[in-house]
Each structure stands twice: as structure tokens, then as C-alpha cells.
């Protein structure tokens, strides 16, 4: 490696570090800069949770190259898992998060085993159809899930550290920071996995599955693990979402919700780690704004989908990335 290259690397690393610092600074200070700009802290909380979901989708879509279009199912399962745990097991916030995550992850592991041999559009269709199974169950099994009305009658509990308690129920800022810590943990683990040898094989499969197979990578098993991990993250995000709303909605499992998640990932830039965060922020803020000003917000979202696909397929960050490279 020549001195020139090394300094380029150093430059890139510094650049990356600056971006990372900026992202975290923005996230940490959100309760202070959002309200003056017309936002509210709860909106920031929703952005974080949905961004985590979009990043979990992207873990599979952008880094393994597997097109899952039914991921909302595991998101919704996470929400129901958390809600049911709070309602029937014990009034503990951490326990509810773990239950939600496990429910999403286990369902993903079981279904993943059925579908990992499929690829491309076939994989997408099967994931959509199986995702609908859970929507259907949540919708029909009203004695447990509350059916069409959703699961109610639970609320997030104060965090009990023995010596002191943090009230995340009434204090919106405290709850925002709680979600931010959860987000940071999940994203940290995700980043760690992507940097590990396992993450490298995921990318190898994305780039050229046949070559990965020739190199002796057990492609099906790797995809299954990646699918399961992504469903675990998804369940975690869903559990957080149940805490955000103190409510679990069957529509959170519907495939149209999966479409929104994939859209967030694509809009932000699905080959980038942080793209889905940006995509989720834009999507959530836009949806929040549109649904307050027009009843035809569905049309606007539809047009947004079409425009992004036709004109910004690389997403916002992909677009910026290409500009700076050139």
C-alpha cells in the first residue's frame, strides 16, 4: 500500500467518523431541535422504531440480496409478543421486548426453513403469502389478539433499576432516549454482524451466489441465518412499536406495511447502512404531514413509490454517494 493510498484511507475514515458523529449528534439532540422545526418528540420516537424495522429489512434486502416482502409479519408478531407479555405475563418493559423479539425470530426461523431454497420473485411471493398467515391469525383469533380492534389493555412500564426508576410512560423525552438506547444497541449488533466474516459471506452471496457456492459457502444455511436474524431485529422493532403506541394493530402485519418498510429502505439507499434511517425519516414525516392535510394521501404515497422507483432507484444516500464519487 503506497503512502498516497494510506492517506486516502485515512481521509475516508475521518470522513466516515464525521458522518457517524453527525448522525448520532442529530439523534441525541432530536428532542431539542425537532419541536422548533414543527415536529414533536413522539414523531422522533416513531421514526427511530420504523427506521430500525427498515434497517432490519435492509439487512436481508441490501446486504444478502434476498427479496423478502413479508417482513411486516415479524414486526407485527414482535408487537403482539410484547403486548401479550405485558398483559398476561408480567408488567416489565425489558421482558416484553425480549418476548416480542423471540416471537418474531422464532416465527422467522420456522418459516425461513421452508422458503430459503426459493429465489427472486418466487421468494418474494412466498414471503408475502406466508406473512399474510400471521395477519390472518391476528385478525381472526380475537379472543387472544383483540381481532380487528387490535390488542389493547397494556402499557409500557417504568424502568426499575432497583436504586431508582425511570418513568418512560409519562415522560416523552425519557421514552425517546430509552428507544434511542434500544436502537443504538440493535444497530450496533447489526453493524457488528455485517463486519464479521458472516456478514462478508452475506455480501458475497448478494454479489454472486454461484461463486459463493463454489467457494464452499453453505448458501442456504447462510440465508436462513440471515433471515432469522433479520426477523429477530424485526421482532425487536415491533416490540418497541407496541410500547410506542401501547397498542398492537393487526394492520402492522399486513403486506402493505412490508411494502412501506421496503420503500423506506429503497428510498434511503438500500446498499448503504444508514440509508433506511433517512428513508424512514422522510417517509414517516411525509406520511404524518400528508395524512393531516389531505384524505387522498394514499395517492401521494403511491406516486412517491412510482417516482422513487423510476427516478431514484439508488435512493437518497446512493444518489449522494454517486455524486461525491464522481
Amino acid at each position, binding site marked *: 500500500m503506497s503512502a498516497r493510498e494510506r492517506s486516502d484511507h485515512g481521509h475516508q475514515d475521518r470522513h466516515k467518523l464525521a458522518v457517524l458523529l453527525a448522525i448520532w449528534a442529530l439523534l441525541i439532540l432530536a428532542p431539542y431541535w425537532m419541536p422548533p422545526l414543527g415536529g414533536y418528540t413522539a414523531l422522533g420516537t416513531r421514526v427511530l422504531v420504523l427506521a430500525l424495522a427498515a434497517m432490519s429489512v435492509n439487512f436481508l*434486502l441490501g446486504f444478502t440480496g434476498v*427479496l423478502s*416482502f413479508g417482513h411486516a409479519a415479524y414486526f407485527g408478531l414482535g408487537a403482539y409478543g410484547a403486548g401479550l407479555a405485558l398483559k398476561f405475563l408480567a408488567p416489565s418493559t425489558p421482558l416484553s421486548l425480549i418476548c416480542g423479539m423471540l416471537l418474531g425470530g422464532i416465527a422467522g426461523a420456522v418459516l425461513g426453513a*421452508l*422458503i430459503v*431454497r*426459493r*429465489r*427472486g*420473485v*418466487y421468494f*418474494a*411471493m*412466498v414471503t*408475502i*403469502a*406466508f406473512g*399474510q*398467515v400471521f395477519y*390472518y*391469525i391476528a385478525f*381472526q383469533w380475537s379472543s387472544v389478539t383483540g381481532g380487528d380492534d387490535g390488542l389493547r389493555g397494556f402499557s409500557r412500564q417504568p424502568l426499575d433499576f432497583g436504586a431508582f426508576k425511570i418513568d418512560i410512560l409519562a415522560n416523552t423525552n425519557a421514552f425517546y432516549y430509552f428507544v434511542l438506547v434500544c436502537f443504538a444497541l440493535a444497530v450496533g449488533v447489526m453493524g457488528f454482524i455485517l463486519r464479521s466474516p458472516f456478514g462478508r459471506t452475506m455480501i458475497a452471496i448478494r454479489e454472486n451466489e454461484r461463486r459463493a457456492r463454489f467457494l464452499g459457502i453453505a448458501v442456504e444455511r447462510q440465508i436462513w441465518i440471515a433471515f432469522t436474524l433479520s426477523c429477530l431485529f424485526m421482532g425487536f422493532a415491533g416490540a418497541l412499536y407496541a410500547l410506542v403506541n401501547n397498542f398492537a394493530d393487526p394492520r402492522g402485519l399486513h*403486506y*402493505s406495511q412490508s*411494502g412501506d418498510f*421496503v*420503500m423506506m429502505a*429503497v428510498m434511503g439507499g438500500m446498499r448503504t447502512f444508514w440509508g433506511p434511517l433517512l428513508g424512514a425519516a422522510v417517509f414517516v414525516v411525509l406520511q404524518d404531514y400528508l395524512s393531516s392535510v389531505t384524505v*387522498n394521501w*394514499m*395517492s401521494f*404515497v*403511491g*406516486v*412517491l*413509490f*412510482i417516482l*422513487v*422507483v*423510476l427516478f431514484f*432507484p439508488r435512493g437518497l444516500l446512493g444518489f449522494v454517494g454517486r455524486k461525491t464519487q464522481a
Partner: protein
Amino acid sequence: MTQLLLFNVTNGLIIGAFYVLMALGLSLILNLSNVINFAHGGFLVIGGYIAYTITPYVGFWGALLIAPLATAVIGLIVERLLIRPLYGRDPLYSLLLTFGLAFLIEDGTRFIWGAQGKPVTVPAVLAQPLSYEFFFITGYRLFMVAMVIISVTLLFVLLRYTRLGIRIRAGTLDLETVSAMGINVRMLRSFNFAVGIFLAGLSGVLAAGQLGLEPTMGTGLLMPSFIAIIVGGVGSLPGTLIGGLLIGVASGVTAVFAPAASEAIMYVLMAVILLLRPRGLLGEEGMMT
């Protein structure tokens, strides 16, 4: 009991015939263009509403012919403007685009025709039950099944015996070679897309007579069509045909014993088939897997 069973099996077959019509259109587009058309249900709704609008002028029979054709024309325009730029790119993009299109169509129909459902009257000849004992077999239902049989037969004749159909089938297997032999693949895909949308429009007209019209009716019919394709085997049109009838009858029969599970049975069927025969009933190994 026998009558109840017969009633539900008949129901299942009729609904299955519907799924077949939807799923065949989806399957055609999926096989040749590798596009999962999420907006297929939307085109069904468009077909139904067009028929509703023009029936006062051209009558039921006129609408039955004109509405699917008009839907196909709209489909052609959509294909030309929105979907053609995406051929050859990751199927993710066409999936997202048609997904957004489905939103747009649903909201658009609500905007134009209102959110309230519209009742649709069928000609008196068809509305009568055939006999008192089999009150559930109305002329319209028989007519629907006949229409499905006719259009499916025509479709298979088109694909098997005409030059165009042979090209479509060849393109499904290897589009590159077809293109290298001097066939205009773009035209082929457009035509194929239009045929698929025509079938969606036709399902819309037929569904309107049975179920009435609602902006959301397409979405509910989309998922069973997906399952029909997966059960039958992606890449096989006869498979789609069998898959659609199978899940229709299965949900009909289940409705007798456990009404709440009549939709769930489709998913169970799909899971079982994917376990025992991952490529679907008539799917070929290596195709689209």
C-alpha cells in the same frame, strides 16, 4: 348435509374459477416479464367500474366485451410508460412500482366513483335460480363459470397454436434466444401484459355482477391468486389453473365444517405443498426458483 356440502363445493368451484382468471393473468406477466403485478387487483377494479359506467349506454353484453378491452388499453399505457423502463432491473423495482400503482388505483377509484359500494344488476335472464332445490345455482353463476372456461380455453389455444402464443411460451423459457431470433421482444411483452390485464378486467366485470363493486375488492382477491400460483407451481399455467380450483374448493369445503378457517386453509395448503413439493404441483425444477 349433502345439499350443504354441494352448495359449498359449488361455491368453492365458482370462487376458484375466479382465482384462476386473476391468477392466470398474473402468471402470464410473471412468467414472461418477471414482474409481480401488485396492481392486478387494481386493474380488476378498473374493469368493474368501467363496466358499471358504460352499462347504461351499451348494455350488459356490450360492457362485458368493452370493459375488459378498455382495461387492457389502460394496461398497455401503464406498461409502456411505467413498467417497460424496469425490465432487466432487479424485480424489486417493478414490485415496488406496481405496489404504489395499486395504492394510486384504489384511491383514484374512490375519488372518481366514491367510497360507497355500487350494486350491479345483471340481466334478468341470468338472475333466476335454475331450480328450487338447487337455489344456489343461479344462471349468473353458471354464466360466470362458462365465461371462465371459454376464456381459459381461448388463452390456452392462443398459447399453443398461434405464432404469438408460441413466442410467448418460448420467451418464458429463454427470452434472450427469442430476441436473438429477430422477434420484437418489447412488443411481445406489451401484448402479453395486455392479455394479462384483459383477464383482470374480465374478472372485474364478472365479479361486479356477483359481489357488487367496491374500491378495495381487488386487494382481497390478490392474495388467493398468489397462493394459486405458488401451489400450482410458478412458471406453469396449467399449474395455476389447478391451483386456483384447488384452493377454491378447499376453502369451500372447509366453510362447511369450520367457517372461520375457510381462508386459513389456503395458507395451510400452500405450506404443505411447499414442504412436500417445493416447486409447486406442476412447477418445473430450475424455473424461477
